[in-house]
């Protein structure tokens, strides 16, 4: 590693077995109050045929300090936002405020059962309502449901709304011919998967050499009256604003379709421009991206769906509404697509997102967007001399590069990513979007300072040099981690998906 870049060094790191390998019969890590009612013989309540006979064999038996050490040690093997920049493109890994965590743990929310009477949960419903209002303002789309649990869930919800709307508009028969969903080749994989879940067949739209939706292709695909809609990410997954968005929406609308926007990249737009003003009909947001709720190592998320007034009747039930000063649940939505999740969605994430919005204020939201875009532009500027930048247009909140120059000497995107680890950074998103060969999608977000951006650029440049001067160094990276690259192919060939005791299996 070149000596000026000293973001990291190596230090001692604790090993830790699987908990099952640590378990010792008889150890206990909990204590419950004694049973304070008269005991009924168990057989009178539950005949033994209903009871398990395996005495839960295999479940761990450990002490409280064992548990603490187990998880504390494992935790130290993770990279995290709190350790540094996490420039995963499309993921918007921004700082997760501690205040939001505190808000979500307030007893009056954390201890509230979802089925209490509405009058006993007015404060909780108000949170939902307020957040709905704010998201409507931010997107320019007034119908909001917070029920979806993540982005993909929001997509499914949105696409089902499109379908339900067309069914209602055209009648079952006519609608049955409109079963095509258009999706750009650059789209995230969840888009086609969600469309499929809603019974659509997917047609792929080409991107132009500039990295934007190919309008001609779009027109062509729209020509046959089969198109129910278009799913568009904007800025798209190349980090480029679809500057023809208005025209795109017109084309789709004129063809009788609706426009779904994947809002995963809203961190480029909040406070600057609103999808509703562009002609978008329905959008999902990722509160766990744009609105800073923590990713938690893969969730939970929250994927609100926002629609035009026209589509509002199709949103999932129950809706949270307000009459005068009273908040209530409205189940009476005959056109609704139905429920997409039990209860009201990932409520804890709504609290955090509302706290984020309140902390930032209208100006702070806009400033965060500006900083996010500035940071991406700064990286784009800093790396363009060393890495191939496949699209000329200035990026919004994220920028894509490729390994074209480095791969000539054998160092591919994966290698560059792994080498970045040695420099103390979490790698960018790699090999996505699929249409860019060897893609490296870099999203710094607003939560990173000038110094660390410079370190990142310096590290990337240093890797570019290494790829020429000492490619082995890059090809065998990372060198500084507790384990090296794992053999993923072997793992998938003979998957071992759970621990098992050395000899026998575990009976049920």
């Amino acid at each position: 590693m070149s000596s000026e870049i000293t973001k990291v060094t190596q230090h001692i790191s604790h090993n830790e077995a699987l908990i099952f390998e640590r378990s010792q019969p008889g150890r206990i890590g909990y204590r419950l109050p004694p049973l304070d009612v008269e005991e009924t013989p168990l057989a009178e309540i539950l005949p033994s045929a209903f009871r398990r006979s395996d005495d839960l064999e295999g479940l761990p038996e450990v002490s409280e300090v064992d548990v603490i050490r187990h998880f504390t040690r494992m935790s130290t093997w993770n990279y995290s936002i709190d350790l540094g920049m996490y420039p995963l493109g499309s993921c918007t890994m921004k700082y997760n405020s501690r205040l939001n965590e505190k808000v979500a743990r307030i007893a009056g929310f954390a201890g509230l059962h979802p089925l209490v009477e509405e009058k006993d949960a007015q404060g909780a419903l108000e949170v939902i309502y307020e957040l709905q209002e704010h998201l409507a303002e931010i997107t320019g789309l007034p119908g909001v449901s917070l029920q979806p649990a993540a982005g993909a869930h929001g997509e499914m919800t949105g696409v089902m709304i499109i379908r339900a709307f067309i069914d209602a508009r055209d009648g079952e028969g006519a609608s049955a011919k409109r079963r095509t969903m258009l999706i750009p080749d650059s789209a995230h994989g969840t888009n086609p998967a969600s469309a499929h879940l809603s019974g659509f067949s997917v047609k792929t739209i080409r991107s132009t050499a500039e990295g934007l939706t190919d309008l001609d292709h779009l027109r062509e695909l729209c020509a046959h009256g089969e198109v129910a809609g278009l799913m568009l990410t904007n800025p798209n997954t190349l980090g480029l604003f679809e500057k023809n968005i208005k025209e795109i929406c017109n084309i789709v609308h004129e063809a009788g379709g609706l426009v779904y926007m994947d809002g995963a990249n809203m961190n480029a737009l909040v406070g600057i421009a609103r999808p509703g003003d562009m002609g978008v009909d329905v959008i999902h947001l990722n509160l766990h991206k744009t609105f800073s709720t923590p990713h938690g190592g893969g969730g939970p998320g929250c994927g609100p769906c926002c629609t035009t007034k026209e589509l509002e009747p199709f949103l999932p039930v129950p809706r949270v509404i307000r009459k005068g000063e009273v908040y209530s649940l409205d189940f009476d939505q005959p056109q609704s697509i139905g429920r997409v999740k039990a209860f009201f969605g990932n409520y804890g994430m709504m609290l955090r997102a509302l706290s984020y919005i309140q902390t930032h204020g209208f100006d702070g939201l806009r400033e965060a967007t500006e900083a996010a875009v500035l940071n991406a532009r700064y990286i784009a500027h800093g790396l363009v001399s060393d890495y191939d930048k496949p699209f000329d247009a200035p990026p919004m909140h994220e920028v894509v590069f490729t390994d074209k120059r480095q791969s000539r000497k054998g160092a591919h995107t994966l290698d560059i990513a792994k080498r970045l680890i040695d420099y103390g950074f979490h790698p960018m998103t790699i090999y996505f979007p699929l249409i860019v060969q060897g893609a490296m999608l870099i999203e710094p977000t607003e939560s990173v300072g000038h110094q660390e951006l410079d370190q990142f650029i310096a590290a990337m440049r240093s890797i570019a040099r290494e790829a020429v001067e000492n490619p082995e160094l890059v090809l065998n990276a990372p060198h500084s981690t507790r384990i090296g690259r794992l053999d993923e192919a072997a793992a998938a060939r003979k998957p071992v998906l759970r621990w098992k005791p050395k000899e026998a299996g575990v009976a049920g």
Partner: protein
Amino acid sequence: MLHQIGLDSTADLFDSIPADLKLSRELKTPAALSELELLAGFEQKAARNPAARRPSFLGAGAYSHYCPTVVDHIISRSEFFTAYTPYQPEISQGTLQVIFEFQTLVCQLTGMEVANASMYDGSTALAEAVLMAERITRRSKVIACGAVHPEYLDVVRTYVQHAGIDLAVAATDPVTGQTSADIDRLLDDKTAAIVVQSPNFFGCVEDVEALAEKAHAVGALLVLAITESISLGLLRSPASLGADIVVAEGQSFGVPLSFGGPYLGLFATREKYARQIPGRLVGEAYDKQGRRGFVLTLATREQHIRREKATSNICTNEGLIALAATVYLETMGRRGLQEVAQQCVQKAAYAARKISELPGFSLPYSAPRFNEFVVRAPVPAVGLLSALASDKEITGGLALSRYFPNQPNDFLVCVTEMNSRNEIDALVEGLGQSSGA
């Protein structure tokens, strides 16, 4: 920095957005609040949720259980909660090993062979199980038992509405509270799966084994749903009952009620269906030096690669909640889970007996139960429970009329280790008084 990259003003950053699409004003969201103001505002809202402060006998898919203090400490370690999905195994082994342990625990509890890294919650897990059954059997009819949680059934309906799946619902026996013989009428060789919940929505333990046999007899799968996962500490394991796909709501494992979410979908099945499972899987892997590690695996099932052909569209799941459940299960351990289950069953039995002794009150269903049971009151349940809340400051349960308008006097009571005897006695007394009995 602006100048370093050759721009003059912040506005230049957004040149690629056509001017007419830009917002020419500030957002009408509120002005920034300081921490103090913000917390005060949320505290005020929280105070307007009086139900959060009362003794409660609500269950019905969301349960109040003891959660060891260590759980929140561990999930508050930022190494866990501020990490992304573990795409880079060399610097994500913490998350990966946790998920591997989680998958193992779910297998141990259910007796199944494979479990995934989590689903959004029990209801969506059930919907995905139904879709998976259809994929496996290539049959399009699904029979759900009538005592599956009504909100779960709603979600299943939403998910299957465009999948060409025909969803039939088998009636519940009004005497036992279990699935009635009605199911035999519905079952045929076009059936992809029987979907049963046990303990069911009315708290009755179903004869899952018999249903599994029926399903298997026609080549269908048995999909078992569990909303109260603590029951796994005491009830027969799903695998031993013949279940093919098991889904459960894992909220009972150390996850706060939090007005309905985030919760945790558990999903387990037989090894032979592993490649049909939705969602993420973590598997063991080794590096060149033979060191063990863990990776996301079998990704070819997933939407990143298969796109519309994926087993599901799920991407972000419930990682941190799976961590919470893992910490919970490892802290409570083999003995703790059994003790919690025992306390639940005992306290519920005590409460059921006391309530049933009240004049005019009865327990309409005869099946064995775990920690929930239906009470039939001499008066409409909604009014009764409202009176109980205002007079005694107790949330006495769930009026079933919310979902079953033809059961106006019935309500569902849930008792866990969190309900002290005093609370139960107060409930019983309150019911007696409020019903005028």
